[in-house]
């Protein structure tokens, strides 16, 4: 096929270089144009030049895009071995190194794409965050300092590396805003939703695209809660029905001409309407089946308000309820354990036993593992607002005032972090600078990277914060996009590896 020109867009990993080598040794195409998504090492260029005997390579460029931009202020790296961040380095050093390398590559590609070199801060209590922060700093300031030497603005941007375990509550909660809810109940992968496992879906709706760039209705509604979405969809369907009706009485040639003119728009609208209606129908079905209204109310109470006795009762009732599914039971117990870890160990044990007896597939010790990883001693931030006097007062005020929607009252810890950054009050003790970096004044661009994954609830928080125009632009990124299933799976993987390694040692 040597009449064709081949364009390759690859990550510069060693496997890709080896595959390319074999290709170049016996080339199939006339011309090869190679684009790499990250920095190429000199040795890799050497290998490629060595194998290019036929001189088919016309250009080699680096095009920095080694991350997946999901939304305008949200990116992810889709790392499969995400659970490695939970384990200490001694357990599996090469895999952890691989994980850290991938994260460092992703972050450096992001800053090369933004053409900035940031000041780096990390969460003190997290080893993974510390390691990644130091490696990024080494890369940007020592190894490739020439490449990163951009025009310096008065205030450098800030890169803040935090750990998922500082806020384990957000991924465990059930979500009620459109984008987050679809990801939680069905699953969004690279802005695509796969509906094949749900029966009776028409063929052209089995895999749909859910992206704010291409869908105006989604862009307007992605952060709205479930009730408002229902209303908006109904008005969209009514509009569409009007349009369809007007298309049906075609009497004159002019009407015909108008119909043919508007046909592509009509089809597009039809596709869009059926996509959203299908999604909302499926989600309503799931909410009904799993009694999520009931479960989620208790979850939000556990996450936001106090009252240990009431919480214990509520959780016990739900555990006894036959209709509640296993994963929901597990989530409830985890949330209770995270909140009331120290308050009443006896009742906690009771809950563990009940969970183990009710859920046959539950891997024993998972909740204890979670507490070991993300318990109250390990957390830096004030997750439940009960450490700082000011926060307690704020919570009491909120409780008295009441909330507009019980199901969306939770604010992720990220929101508090962003507020402290805006006010310039991010504590150096908790979030130290790397090396001798220093920042005067407040940054205008802040990139927050969560090792362990981000959630759509946090990306919503960031988008709403950016919309308030406070003068600081936030960008959020993570190693994966979490929902409760993925977070629990990571915990299970980490627990399995920790167990097998401890039994070996």
């Amino acid at each position, binding site marked *: 096929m040597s*009449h064709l020109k081949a364009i390759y867009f690859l990550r510069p990993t060693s496997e890709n270089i080896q595959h390319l080598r074999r290709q170049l040794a016996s080339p199939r195409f006339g011309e090869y144009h190679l684009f790499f998504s990250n920095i190429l090492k000199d040795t890799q260029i050497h290998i490629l030049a060595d194998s290019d005997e036929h001189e*088919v390579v016309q250009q080699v460029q680096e095009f920095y895009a080694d991350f997946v931009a999901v939304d305008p202020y949200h990116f992810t790296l889709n790392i499969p071995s995400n659970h490695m961040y939970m384990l200490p380095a001694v357990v599996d050093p090469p895999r952890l190194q691989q994980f850290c390398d991938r994260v460092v590559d992703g972050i450096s590609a992001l800053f090369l794409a933004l053409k900035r070199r940031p000041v780096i801060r990390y969460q003190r209590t997290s080893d993974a965050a510390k390691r990644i922060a130091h490696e990024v700093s080494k890369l940007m300031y020592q190894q490739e300092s020439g490449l990163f030497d951009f025009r310096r603005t008065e205030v450098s941007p800030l890169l803040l590396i935090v750990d998922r375990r500082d806020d384990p509550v957000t991924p465990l909660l059930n979500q009620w805003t459109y984008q987050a809810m679809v990801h939680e109940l069905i699953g969004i992968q690279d802005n*695509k939703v796969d509906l094949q496992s749900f029966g009776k879906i028409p063929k052209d709706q089995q895999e749909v695209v859910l992206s704010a760039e291409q869908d105006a209705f989604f862009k307007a509604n992605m952060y709205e809660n479930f009730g408002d979405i229902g209303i908006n969809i109904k008005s969209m369907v009514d509009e569409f029905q009007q349009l369809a009706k007007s298309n049906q009485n075609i009497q004159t040639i002019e009407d015909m001409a108008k119909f043919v003119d508007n046909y592509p728009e009509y089809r597009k609208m039809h596709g869009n309407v059926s996509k959203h209606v299908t999604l909302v129908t499926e989600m309503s079905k799931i909410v009904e089946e799993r009694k999520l209204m009931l479960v989620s109310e208790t979850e939000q109470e556990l996450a936001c308000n106090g009252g240990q006795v009431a919480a214990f009762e509520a959780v016990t009732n739900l555990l006894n309820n036959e209709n509640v599914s296993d994963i929901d039971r597990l989530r409830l117990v985890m949330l209770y354990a995270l909140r009331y870890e120290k308050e009443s160990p006896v009742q906690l044990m009771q809950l563990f036993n009940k969970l183990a007896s009710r859920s046959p597939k539950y891997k024993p010790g998972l909740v204890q593992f979670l507490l070991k990883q993300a318990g109250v001693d390990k957390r830096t931030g004030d997750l439940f607002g009960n450490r700082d006097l000011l926060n307690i007062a704020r919570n009491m005020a909120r409780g008295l005032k009441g909330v507009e929607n019980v199901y969306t009252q939770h604010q992720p810890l990220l929101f508090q972090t962003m507020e402290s950054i805006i006010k310039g009050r991010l504590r150096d003790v908790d979030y130290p600078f790397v090396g001798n970096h220093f920042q005067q004044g407040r940054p205008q661009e802040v990139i927050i990277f969560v090792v362990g994954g981000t959630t759509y609830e946090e990306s919503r928080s960031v988008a709403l914060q950016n919309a308030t125009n406070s003068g600081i632009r936030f960008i959020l990124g993570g190693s994966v996009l979490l929902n409760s299933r993925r977070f629990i799976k990571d915990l299970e993987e980490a627990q399995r590896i920790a167990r097998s390694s401890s039994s070996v040692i």
Partner: protein
Amino acid sequence: MATRNRTPVYRKYRDALKTVRAPSSSSAGSRSSAGSPVIEMVGSSILKQSRSYAPLRTDDPAYSSGKGAPTAGLPPGWVDFSEEIAANVQRAWAKMVELSKARAKALMPSFADGKEDQLLIETLTQEITDLIRRSEKNLKRLSSPGPAEDSNLRKNVQRSLATDLQGLSVELRKKQSAYLKRLKQLKEGQDGIDFEMNLNGSRSTMDDDDLDDMGFSEHQMAKVKKSEAITVEREREIQQVVKSVNELAEIMKDLSFLVIDQGTIIDRIDYNIQNVASTVEKGLKQLQKAERSQRQGGMVTCVTVLVIMCFVMLILLILKEIFL
């Protein structure tokens, strides 16, 4: 977007390595060149040379490194159609620009009879519609015959060209209807006066003479003649409009079958690439199977046996001559 060009560094390494490799490659070339023509000849007679693929060149670096790049094979036949369609689309866009200029000129009020403008507009419209029709025929030809390997590729090319064509015809129709609307406005503004669209002005004057000896009064006759002329004109124009609208509507109907809906999964590049990856793997397996079966094929062994037998017979013949 941020990029960095590594081509100069790469070229530097490549040239450096080429000089290191050069002395060894010439000896390799001389060794294989003796053997390669034979294998090429045998290979070409056995394999069916389909036009889609370049002749198999398994291992002769001497062949290509001397020329600097491998000789390009011929692209498949249907590429001609797609290139023709693309060229037609370009020409049609250029003509559309001319057409809109001509229409704008015709719409400006002028005292001169706008017959040449009208002619120009009509010929341009005809040409554009012709181009669109021809492209549509070529588009149909793209889908019909040929091997099934590149059917996906053809379908994709067909779809993108169909989108372009549809855009073109939609533009044309929109401009045409806008022009006609303005024309109608102008007509209603100047009622009864002879103007642009009247190509057969002479016919109405002939009618005038024929109706002279009817029993109506002259005033009424004049009125009747005028309104007749106007209605006849209007009818003609409307018929023209209907004709062109119908033509274009047919074309749009055909094209809309081929065009993909907006925003669905099929339109996305990453979905196509994922599909490509899986089909390429399957293709690789098939290729490997084919290679294996071909090597084991009886044909190759047959031919080698026959060639050896020929040589043996030749030697026997020579020996016979020598000894007898």
